[in-house]
């Protein structure tokens, strides 16, 4: 047993988190900033934060992840980090020449009270920001929220600090990407194009964190939302925020600053969430849905219908980030599966509310929990008490899956031990098909493994 100390008996814990189902805000801010073209994320704190975040993102994407740090030492912690950040800005623009530096704070700089707005203003006043270049920021103390809210804060910061309302509307819709893979962002763009709606998608890590091997390291890869696009978001007809936790804050910021109305949707994971996305986007863009999208949808329904017997009633435990696992839970129910245990480390009442909406009618007995105490240790204990047929979650799930001998699907962040997530989308109908394929493969492989010889099936 890998997790040999995990007991079946569940005891209430108040002080100790074991095997968290979340990490801290700054890494989310770093990821979000990578979705802006020509942007260098900057971690205002100790070197360790930046190193850890870069390492984790690198392991997930198997791609270069560039970011700088204010390299706090004890002096900075005592006297404040302004000098470090000013020095960093100077060094960065001269050595790495980004269009934008996106600074996020850490628990350290927040605890000592560094004011990023004030410091960046000073940097500008001191002439440390070259003409046409930008320094933006987001407050992301590690002791609040999670990596998901850190992402949300940086995306909101991007919206707030770039969007300009010129007074004349543009025929375009903002799509604010919740925390999703580059492949997902690429698919959102493809779908929008197929639908015939002009969009500005931000952030957009496609062509950044899925860059080709070319023999050259391109420090600022070709992807990412451009400054011009970001500025234009203030003139867009409306915004669609894909994810109430990770994307909505940016939509609110845009509404506040530029009066761009918004609608918040689930991330388009699974059939119905994609339906809602397509409906909302076609409505926002005033277009009819082309047959090819309807056909793609029909292919997904077709596979679900054809393979329903293998999905029916299968018990699933899942953990991950709220904007992903909320629509995934709905999708599992549409697959006639049974999500039985769900945890998400990210705090917030939206999770509970949305889960209730999905589960109350169709699966009121499902156990779910988020925020403090909603860790993988708890999930594992639940699994020991009420076993499941399938576990879905990030790479750390593999330890539970092996101990409990449960088929396991990698989904979410981080995925450190397999490739594919950054190249093949999970969103949209095609993403739904991929999820169904993965689920079926997991279930059928297990059936094949465990079948008695006389029950080993040729056709399934």
């Amino acid at each position, binding site marked *: *047993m890998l*997790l040999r*100390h995990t*007991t079946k008996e569940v*005891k209430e*814990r*108040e*002080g*100790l*988190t*074991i*095997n*968290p189902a979340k*990490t*801290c805000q700054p*890494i989310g801010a770093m990821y979000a900033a990578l979705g802006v073209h020509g942007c260098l994320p900057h971690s205002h*704190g*100790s*070197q*360790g*934060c930046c*190193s*850890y*975040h870069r*390492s*984790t993102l*690198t*392991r997930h994407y*198997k791609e*270069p*992840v*560039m970011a*700088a740090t204010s*390299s*706090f*030492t*004890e*002096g*900075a*912690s005592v006297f404040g980090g302004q000098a470090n950040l000013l*020095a*960093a800005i*100077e*060094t*960065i623009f*001269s*050595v*790495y020449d980004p269009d934008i530096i996106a600074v996020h704070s850490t*628990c*350290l700089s927040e*605890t000592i009270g560094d004011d990023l707005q004030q410091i960046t203003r000073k940097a500008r006043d001191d002439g440390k920001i070259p003409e046409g270049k930008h320094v933006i920021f987001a407050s992301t103390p*590690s*002791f*609040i929220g999670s990596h998901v809210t850190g992402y949300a804060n940086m995306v909101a910061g991007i919206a707030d600090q770039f969007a300009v309302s010129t007074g004349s509307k543009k025929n375009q819709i903002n799509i604010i990407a919740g925390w999703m893979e580059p492949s997902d962002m690429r698919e959102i763009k493809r779908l929008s194009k197929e639908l015939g709606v002009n969009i500005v998608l931000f952030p957009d890590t496609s062509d950044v964190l899925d860059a080709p*091997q070319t*023999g*050259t390291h391109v420090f600022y890869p070709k992807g990412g939302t451009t400054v011009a696009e970001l500025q234009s978001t203030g003139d867009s007809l409306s915004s669609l925020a894909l994810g109430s936790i990770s994307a909505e804050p940016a939509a609110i910021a845009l509404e506040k600053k530029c009066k761009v109305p918004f609608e918040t949707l689930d991330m388009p994971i699974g059939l119905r969430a994609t339906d809602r996305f397509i409906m909302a986007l076609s409505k926002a863009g005033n277009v009819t849905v082309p047959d090819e999208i309807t056909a793609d949808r029909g292919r997904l329904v077709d596979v679900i219908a054809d393979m329903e017997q293998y999905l029916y009633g299968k018990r699933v435990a899942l953990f991950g980030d709220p904007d992903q696992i909320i629509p995934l839970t709905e999708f599992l129910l549409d697959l006639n599966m049974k999500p039985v245990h769900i945890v998400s*480390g990210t705090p917030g009442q939206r999770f509970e509310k949305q889960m209730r909406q999905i589960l109350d009618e169709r699966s009121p007995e499902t156990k779910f929990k988020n925020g403090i105490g909603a860790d993988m*240790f708890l999930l594992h204990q639940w699994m020991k008490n009420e076993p499941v047929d399938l576990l879905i979650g990030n790479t*750390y799930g593999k330890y539970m899956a092996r101990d409990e001998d449960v088929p396991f699907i990698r989904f979410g962040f981080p995925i450190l031990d397999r490739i594919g997530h950054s190249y093949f989308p999970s969103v949209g109908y095609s993403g739904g098909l991929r999820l169904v394929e993965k689920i079926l493969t997991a279930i059928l492989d297990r059936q094949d493994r465990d079948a008695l010889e006389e029950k080993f099936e040729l056709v399934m």
Partner: protein
Amino acid sequence: MEANTHFPDPSQVREELIQRYPTKVAKKRAKSIIVNDPQIIPEVQANVRTVPGIITQRGCSYAGCKGVVLGPTRDIVNIVHGPIGCSFYAWMTRRNQTRPESLEDANFIPYCFSTDMQEENIVFGGEKKLKQAIQEAYDLFHPKSIAIFSTCPVGLIGDDVHAASREMKEKLGDCNVFGFSCEGYRGVSQSAGHHIANNGVFKHMVGRDNTPSEGKFKLNLLGEYNIGGDAFEIERIFEKAGLTLISSFSGNSTVKQLENSHMADLNVIQCHRSINYMGDMMETKYGIPWMKVSFVGAESSAKSLRKIAEYFGDEELKAKVEAVIAEEMPKVKAIIDEILPRTKGKTAMLFVGGSRAHHYQDLFTELGMTTVAAGYEFAHRDDYEGREVLPNIKIDADSKNIEELKVVADPELYNPRKTEAELEALKEKGLEINGYEGMMKQMTKKSLVVDDLSHYESEKLIEIYKPDIFCAGIKEKYVVQKMGVPLKQLHSYDYGGPYTGFEGAVNFYKDIDRMVNNPVWKLIKAPWEKAGNGAALEATYVTQ
């Protein structure tokens, strides 16, 4: 051995590396970029603050303390006191392997423990939550020991983890609870954390258990963290040679071993940077000499074994060591003979850690490859130039707050394992006791030595030298590979290993052979990207 002459003039290279920096930065960096001369050993600026904004390989004190030194311990519940991230990122990411004897033995390595501090804990203090966490950990797991690691805000808000630990230790009775003030902002790199960890382990663990151990030749293995199973291979060799390993610091170690480690008669140090404090302190307090060894490379492993045998001065042991070497070496040689023609003449760069950038050069040498540039991520001048420079190292503001334990000989347990005369005799036989000659003596003249290499410098170096392989860490891996150069991770070993000892050497040879000769690097350009499209011809060779 001279570096290959077709390389550019290294001092010009140095100019190129710094020319883009702002003047002050350039001036600072220039002191850390040194053209080597093994004869005279120029001074390398090391263990100084990284310029803010520079993209560095370095991490923090917490990473050095919890991540490196304490992480590999199997049966300590290591609770990180702070917001969730620090504990999350250090959760199994260093591949410290461990092998409990049975399913009943404790193994907390796959677990991540954190107090997950929230805003209210920052505002009102987190000690209460910490004590609650300790209590819960105790109730759930009943560990022998609980260690607490402080992250950045902890020191700033004034949580006293030491007091909290003492209080809980007393309350729990049968559990040794102790803390580390390893906040991320301490020092300039992981190195501060190593020192803090050494101090804590020495204070709270070493010497608690005076049970004498069996075994004629008892030693501790210091600075070996069992990444990829390195310690397993060394354990295998020790056992074969008849050496008794009392404790590792800290790969595959247990509380019991660490607490009993002062009963050994020799400390051998693998990673000088992270653990030399422990060697010195145990020498002072218990009279155990330490000796630098390296089990990276087949020749180095053989040499280290011989040194240990020489230290113990036992003929039977010496004979046994020779027998082990005689048995192991032919397998290694056979592989070398097969691989060498494919690796000979190729070049390597190593920028990593505080020890590996030195020792892995041996393996490349065994493969006929030249190290054209190397440097450490968080080492000190002594790791470059040798411990003889120690008296001359100026401690700057960033490091002077790292506690230096005042250690004196233990009134009861001090027992010099060798007399002064014996030590003198060993030195005359070439055994450097309590010493380390550093990396640069071993490197070729005109090779480049760069401390705390920045991202910018690494790209420049690759452009200029086009090495066949680059060794660094995960953050660098895909950057370098995007440039068409394979990168070997020397922290995580690219999830391979072990690379120590004889079997490890073979593993390494094979991996390097695979990497530097991988056909994938020839596939990078699409046929239509190739000049003149003459390649189109090549691309169609399988058609009919």
